[in-house]
């Protein structure tokens, strides 16, 4: 039996002693040992479903499949139906050659169907629950302020903590599932009031609202895992946490989480805890990072261009990592139409894929006027994870353009601002 110094309830003690079976004991031991490393002294009951990062049946994750098999054999499921990151492939809507498809089906994601069956068996909500933006209304994993969670997917963690005011640590894949199985998370870090205080103040002094992806990237590289309190951004976002501000913060958070390990940021006067607690969130002695136009440009210039030929014609463009909200989808439709009009073109000259959650995709497709307009531009709509698609070495070799800093970070895709990317796909060249 694993001996812990953590304060356990009577029920937790019995489970750790193996009274719920060996697999449940191992799940609980994992959660406890994980928490002990961070000084957690107790487990907190979860208030909402978990969100899983692992959505792909990639054979290299054999140890994960083995854990799933053990959970299933023991008849274990999460207490609440959970959501999971996007699927990796969509042959109907994302350009894929026969050879690329062969690599996907036979090598890369050969275990996809098996893995999805495993997910269903341990508590997946439904077949439309595959999105990195699980908090969209159309996906339905929307926690409330103060809810204790155990999420993975770094961009979702940042959004839940920062924009929704829920409380989750940046959990690793599998660990979040095990927390869901035992219905508890160790109380430390971002689950505590002290862990949510800011040790960095970001002074934003740009001449206009910077690109969310670049601002998030700058913050992530500077503060790494610490909590920043951002001054000067709320006013640039209009002072209201409306849909536009939420969309911006979604993208900012994803960039800060992938270029660093930011799990929570506060925006002065805008995000829930900053509105309530204000400067009281800032720790004494917090360091300051000034971000002006020059700093944003410096960060941008630091991005390597990994295309073999930097002047190559882009072969594919991805927009929507993390997934686009419904409002962003409509905005991108207008932006692409405007870029095409400016070029005197009717259709994009780079195959362009907009990615969003399955429920958002379905709603957009149900809007026949909007769908007809999108189809007229030549762009397509999908609910895949572009990152998983580009993990295919054949796909990854393509000159791919994106406005996602996260996608740029993990693949050879080349970053463009949103305005630049609209122009690139309309012109067909960089």
């Amino acid at each position, binding site marked *: 039996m694993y001996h812990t110094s953590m304060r356990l309830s009577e029920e937790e003690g019995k489970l750790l002693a193996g009274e719920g079976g060996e697999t449940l004991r*191992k799940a609980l*031991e*994992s959660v406890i*040992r*994980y928490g002990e*490393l*961070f000084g957690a002294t107790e487990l907190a009951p979860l208030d909402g479903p978990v969100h899983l*990062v*692992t959505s792909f049946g*990639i054979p*290299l*994750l*054999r*140890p*994960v499949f*083995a*854990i799933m098999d*053990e959970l299933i054999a023991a008849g274990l499921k999460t207490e609440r139906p959970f959501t999971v990151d996007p699927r990796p492939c969509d042959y109907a809507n994302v350009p894929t050659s026969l050879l690329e498809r062969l690599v996907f089906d036979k090598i*890369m994601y050969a275990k996809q169907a098996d893995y999805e069956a495993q997910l269903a068996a341990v508590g997946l909500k439904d077949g439309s629950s595959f999105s990195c933006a699980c908090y969209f209304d159309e996906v339905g994993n929307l926690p409330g302020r103060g809810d204790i969670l155990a999420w*993975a*997917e*770094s961009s979702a*963690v940042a959004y839940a903590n920062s924009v929704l005011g829920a409380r989750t*640590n*940046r*959990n*690793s*894949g*599998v*660990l*979040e599932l095990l927390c869901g199985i035992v219905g508890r998370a160790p109380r430390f*870090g971002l689950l505590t009031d002290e862990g949510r205080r800011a040790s960095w103040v970001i002074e934003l002094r740009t001449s206009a609202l910077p690109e969310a992806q670049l601002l998030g990237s700058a913050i992530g590289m500077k503060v*790494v*895992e610490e909590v920043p309190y951002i001054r000067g951004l709320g006013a640039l976002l209009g002072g209201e946490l409306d849909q536009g501000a939420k969309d911006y913060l979604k993208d900012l958070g994803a960039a800060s989480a*992938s*270029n*660093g*390990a930011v799990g929570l940021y506060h925006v002065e006067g805008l995000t829930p805890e900053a509105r309530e607690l204000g400067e009281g969130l800032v720790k004494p002695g917090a360091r300051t990072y000034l971000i002006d136009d020059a700093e944003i440009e410096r960060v941008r210039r630091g991005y*390597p261009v*990994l295309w073999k030929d930097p002047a190559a014609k882009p072969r594919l463009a991805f927009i929507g990592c993390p997934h686009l909200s419904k409002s962003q989808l409509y905005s991108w439709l207008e932006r692409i139409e405007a870029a095409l009009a400016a070029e005197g073109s009717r259709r994009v000259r780079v195959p362009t894929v907009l990615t969003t959650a399955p429920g958002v995709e379905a709603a957009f497709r149900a809007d026949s006027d909007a769908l007809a307009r999108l189809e007229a531009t030549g762009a397509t709509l999908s609910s895949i994870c572009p990152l998983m698609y580009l*993990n295919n*070495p054949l796909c990854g070799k393509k000159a791919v353009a994106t406005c996602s800093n996260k996608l740029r*970070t*993990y693949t*050879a895709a080349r970053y463009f601002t949103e305005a630049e990317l609209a122009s690139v796909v309309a012109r067909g060249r960089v």
Partner: protein
Amino acid sequence: MKQTFKGRPVVAGSVSGEAVVSRAGVNVLASFQKDLLARKAAVASRDQNNPGLLGKVLTGKILCLPRTIGSTTGGMILQKAIAAGLAPRAFLFSEPIDSLAAAGLVLAAVWNGAEAVAVDGLGEEFLAAVRDADKIEIRGDGTVVVGE
């Protein structure tokens, strides 16, 4: 010249080996995934955003780093690497361990019975002192000796 540092044994053990050093946070997904996917016999870092580590072999080394960063798939990637015998022999963190590295170490230990030695909280001075290819000795109490 030998230098001695003391940290917290996260996964206690006595091992020695050769250092590979990252001054920046190590993005586990970006560093390990490509070579694991390609089933290479040894993993070298493929993280384009960490030029100091890019291309260096990680398998069997003593990885000296501030912490891990990036995608929350990091823990299970690390679990896979440890379970498959493709991880560094030990992890020496200058900072307190992060949640992704912690998960990877715990998952490998509990579910695969595989352990990689880890010590955290070694301090900035440790990372400032250690160099690639330095000989390193790690003791079970979290003592780390750098150099010969």
